[in-house]
């Protein structure tokens, strides 16, 4: 791209030929259109979901919807508290299992591994990120569920199985982003630490990781976003009982899985309740995005 076109004042634009000017303008509009279509799609989805979900406020009552503890379509009771709790149990447990693994992998890749080792560990992590979630679900229901069933003496459906499956799913996301954060720490900081007589371990946990703290938290929140929205893999292993589970091995249900289970036959208020649940998920993900943005501002 030539220098003058990058200027924004009309004065510099006069320096280029008419055809270049037209081309530049067209491209600018094209990119604007791309971005605009995307924003429009998000807005439309939001408006549609909100519009479909609104009757829950007028016909059912928002308080009863959010704090109700019974989800039962046959008796027209739509309390989503057990489902919200289920979503958080599944998500937070997966984060607790996955985060140490992911951050450990990231530290290994950025500070410990030799270039040769890194050259095959990194692609493996990236490959894991690209596996479709239904494959994880299939692995979860066939292999993991029966293993869990054997050692726990239950059906194997429940939070624990979902934690393991989800942890494997979010490790690549968190690891890749954390590694970027760790590698963006200037080499000089590490050298200063070594110069003070610190060992490699001391350097990692006292200097490098704290310096990359906000980037790593960013990565964890994005991983949480993936975990809370994940449906297919979770649906196959949670057991789909819309109750507060009394053990990690008891069936539970999450917001996303309940939507999938009920969608095929939901009508009337039941359908509205599903849309309202989708709106709740929308709000949760907006909160997560807002947190990430706030943290990035903090880092800068």
């Amino acid at each position, binding site marked *: 791209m030539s220098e003058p076109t990058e200027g924004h004042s009309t004065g510099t634009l006069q320096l280029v030929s008419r055809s270049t000017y037209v081309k530049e303008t067209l491209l600018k509009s094209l990119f604007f259109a791309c971005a605009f279509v995307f924003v429009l799609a998000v807005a439309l989805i939001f408006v549609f979901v909100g519009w479909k979900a609104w009757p829950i406020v007028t016909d059912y009552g928002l308080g009863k919807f959010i704090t109700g503890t*019974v989800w039962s*379509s046959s008796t027209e009771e739509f309390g989503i508290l057990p489902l919200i709790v289920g979503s958080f149990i599944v998500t937070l447990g997966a984060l607790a299992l996955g985060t140490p693994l992911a951050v450990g992998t990231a530290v290994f890749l950025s500070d410990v591994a030799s270039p040769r080792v890194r050259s095959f560990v990194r692609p493996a992590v990236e490959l894991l990120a690209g596996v479709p979630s239904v494959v994880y679900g299939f692995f979860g229901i066939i292999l993991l569920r029966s293993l869990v069933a054997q050692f726990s*003496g*239950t059906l194997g459906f429940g939070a624990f199985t979902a934690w393991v499956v989800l942890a494997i799913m979010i490790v690549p996301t968190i690891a890749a982003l954390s590694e970027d954060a760790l590698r963006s720490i200037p080499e000089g900081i590490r050298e200063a630490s070594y110069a003070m007589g610190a060992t490699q371990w001391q350097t990692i946990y006292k200097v490098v990781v704290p310096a990359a703290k906000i980037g790593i938290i960013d990565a964890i929140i994005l991983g949480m976003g993936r975990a809370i929205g994940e449906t297919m893999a979770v649906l196959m292993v949670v057991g789909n009982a819309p109750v507060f589970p009394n053990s990690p091995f008891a*069936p539970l249900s999450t917001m996303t899985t309940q939507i999938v*289970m*009920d969608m095929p036959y939901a009508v009337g208020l039941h359908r509205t309740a599903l849309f309202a649940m989708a709106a709740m998920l929308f709000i949760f993900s907006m909160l997560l995005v807002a947190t990430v943005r706030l943290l990035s501002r903090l880092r800068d």
Partner: protein
Amino acid sequence: MQHRKSRHVYGRGHRSVLFLSSRAGSDRPSRGTRVYSAARLGVLAALAFSLLMSAGCSNQKQRVDEISVSGSTTILPIAEQAAELFMADHPTANVLVSGLGSSAGIEAVSAGTTQIGTSSRDLKEEEQGLGLIDTPIAYDGIAVIVSEENPVSGLTIEQLRSVFAGEITNWSEVGGEDRPIELVNRDEASGTREAFKKIVMEDKPFDRRAAVLPGTGQVRDVVARAPGAIGYISLGFVAPRFNSISVKALKIDGVAPNEKTVADQTYPIGRLLHFFTKGEPTGLTKEYIDFVLSDTIQQGVVVDAGFIPIAEGGAK
């Protein structure tokens, strides 16, 4: 009904159009390519088909011979497929099938607005004196399954109800090992769940802590591998297929579920599927009922739909 009528109209319309096109085809010199002759074959086949179709409706007076079959949605697949095959055999007959629910079917047949009322339940007391004749056409049975490792071999229906309501939570309470009972339920869209709820649970709600699985195959697979699990599936799915592991079907009230016990109704979690007529069936109604009871339908449509033919074990 609309569907059938429109088919008559199209049948006639096709005939005249295709006559023209086939004549136009024969006027042409016969040096057509393979594609052309294939197309002509297609046209001829379509012509033959439309002639066959219109032969049935050419005499509208005979199409007045019409019966209607309405009621249970469970029976709908049997009644519909039987109606199609029946009309193929009887070009003058028109059988209209609709599913409104068993109660609506019984009401319609007693009011005389339909010739056959289909029902997946017996007559209630207040429906007894209406002069309805019952012709059972098939059986539907639900097996309660546990793992082969489970030593319990039977439950009473009251125990079963308490188990699925979450009141009995350990196998030792029903004579088994000291092991928690793991309930496996079906999703609310399932017809099997609906039938189980009606027959076994009566007014008690299901325990909501039960795992809810979206398919018969999944219920079977999960229960087969978990020693503490209990679930229910249609009787037709109990026997292992494609090398799946076997499951144990529990005796209920001392009766093991099989085609015979479901058929003679000694096994409690089963139901008869009925055709009700106002008085003894006559004419086309009788012909249609006889057709549904024939081997063609019983061994084909009925078995394929997962039900048990009425002849197995002898109808009452």
